[in-house]
């Protein structure tokens, strides 16, 4: 055999090695696969979006405030006394304006420490990150609401802040979560409801071995299935609805990415 070819593929091919290469090539890294599963593109952009929104809202609020102050009949009364309007806003989002520096750093979750031996600052860098406080994790809601309120008490822009959080699930972002569940986790999450989904087949006389494909949307902040529906030909059938309802019961591990779409086919018994 030509040893050179094994070492250097530009040398004259060795038949045996070439044969192995040809057989194994299809298992190789798919260069054409888009890097979209790699969340580094979204890791930073997701949190900055609310920040941008907040900036816009803050500028708008400031403009309104200035206009209101200028338009007041008695300009000598300098203390504007704004707070009354602010109350409902707090619940929505403490100021994300301070969050720009943190998103790329905030990843203290890693049980798999980085392999570079000398480094220790992983924890120190991650822990002081102020972001979690800003991000308002759902369970800590009461505390940040109380503590964070005074400093930014944004004024009359409550409506706008709410819209931001309707458009994007900003309160649920938790940087310690993975960007999305792995396949193994998806399997594990679906496993408990498989029997129930398959029972739909018996219940609605589905042909044995037939597949019912369900599309679902999983919300990262809760791990719940937001919506699910069966694909054709089961879209509006009792069988399709039954399986989709079973899917709604699935609980996935929480993740920090945007809501995730997933298709899954259930084979009927």
């Amino acid at each position, binding site marked *: 055999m030509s040893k050179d070819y094994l070492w250097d*593929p530009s040398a004259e091919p060795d038949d*045996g090695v070439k044969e192995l290469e040809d057989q194994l090539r*299809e*298992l190789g890294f798919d260069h054409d696969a888009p890097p979209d599963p790699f969340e580094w593109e979204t*890791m930073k952009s997701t949190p900055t979006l609310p920040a941008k929104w907040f900036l816009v809202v803050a500028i708008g609020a400031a403009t309104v405030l200035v206009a209101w102050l200028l338009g007041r009949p008695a300009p000598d009364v300098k203390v504007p006394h704004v707070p009354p309007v602010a109350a409902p806003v707090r619940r929505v989002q403490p100021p994300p304006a301070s969050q720009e520096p943190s998103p*790329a*750093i905030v990843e203290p979750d890693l049980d*798999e420490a*980085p392999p570079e031996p000398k*480094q220790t600052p992983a924890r120190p860098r991650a822990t002081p990150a102020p972001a979690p406080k800003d991000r308002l994790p759902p369970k800590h809601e009461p505390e940040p609401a109380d503590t964070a309120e005074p400093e930014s008490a944004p004024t009359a822009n409550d409506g706008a802040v709410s819209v931001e959080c309707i458009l994007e699930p900003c309160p649920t972002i938790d940087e310690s979560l993975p960007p999305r569940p792995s396949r193994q986790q998806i399997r594990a999450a679906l496993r408990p409801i498989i029997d129930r989904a398959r029972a739909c087949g018996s219940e609605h006389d589905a042909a044995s071995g037939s597949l019912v494909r369900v599309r679902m949307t999983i919300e990262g902040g809760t791990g719940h299935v937001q919506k699910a529906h069966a694909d054709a030909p089961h879209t509006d059938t009792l069988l399709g609805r039954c399986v989709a309802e079973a899917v709604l019961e699935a609980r996935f591990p929480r993740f920090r990415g945007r809501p995730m779409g997933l298709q899954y086919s259930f084979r009927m018994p």
Partner: protein
Amino acid sequence: MSSPGTTSSGSSDRARVSSTPVDLVERAKARDRAAFTALYRAYGRMVHGIVLARVERDSVADLVQDVFELAWRQLPQLEQPEAFGSWLATIARRRAAARRARPVASEPLPELRDPVSTTSHVEARAILRLIRSLPEAYREPLVLRLVEGMSGPEIAARTGLTAGSVRVNLHRGTKLLRRKLGRDDQGGRR
């Protein structure tokens, strides 16, 4: 194989990324996503091969993703940019080892099964299983060479292993693999 940083084409984003690996690492450390994407393109095969040499193929895509995500997050702590390849390879090996150690139910589920199982595909998987059954030192270079199409020098350069050990392990591993496959040294079948 093109060198890191020269694989990109197309978008202006990528066109910008045409520098040495060390430059790319430095820029990626500074949170330059285009640079990191270039690193992904340059080192994706290596990571894929390292993982594939250790875990079932169904888990490989997830693990490759994990490895790069972890690398992206931890990159600012990498002190020596020139050690990026071996650093990344170590992450990949550790992640693969952790996955292997974790007991995972392997019930085949319809949606996740391979849609096509051609004979060549089955054969490829069988050979891969054989490679995985070889001594550990041979697996990684063999997969990187035969599956990922990397050259010997490239394997050494990317993974940080010495050229000598890669070469020896490649040849010994191939010999052993052929023996297991029942193929003689001339490349024919017995």
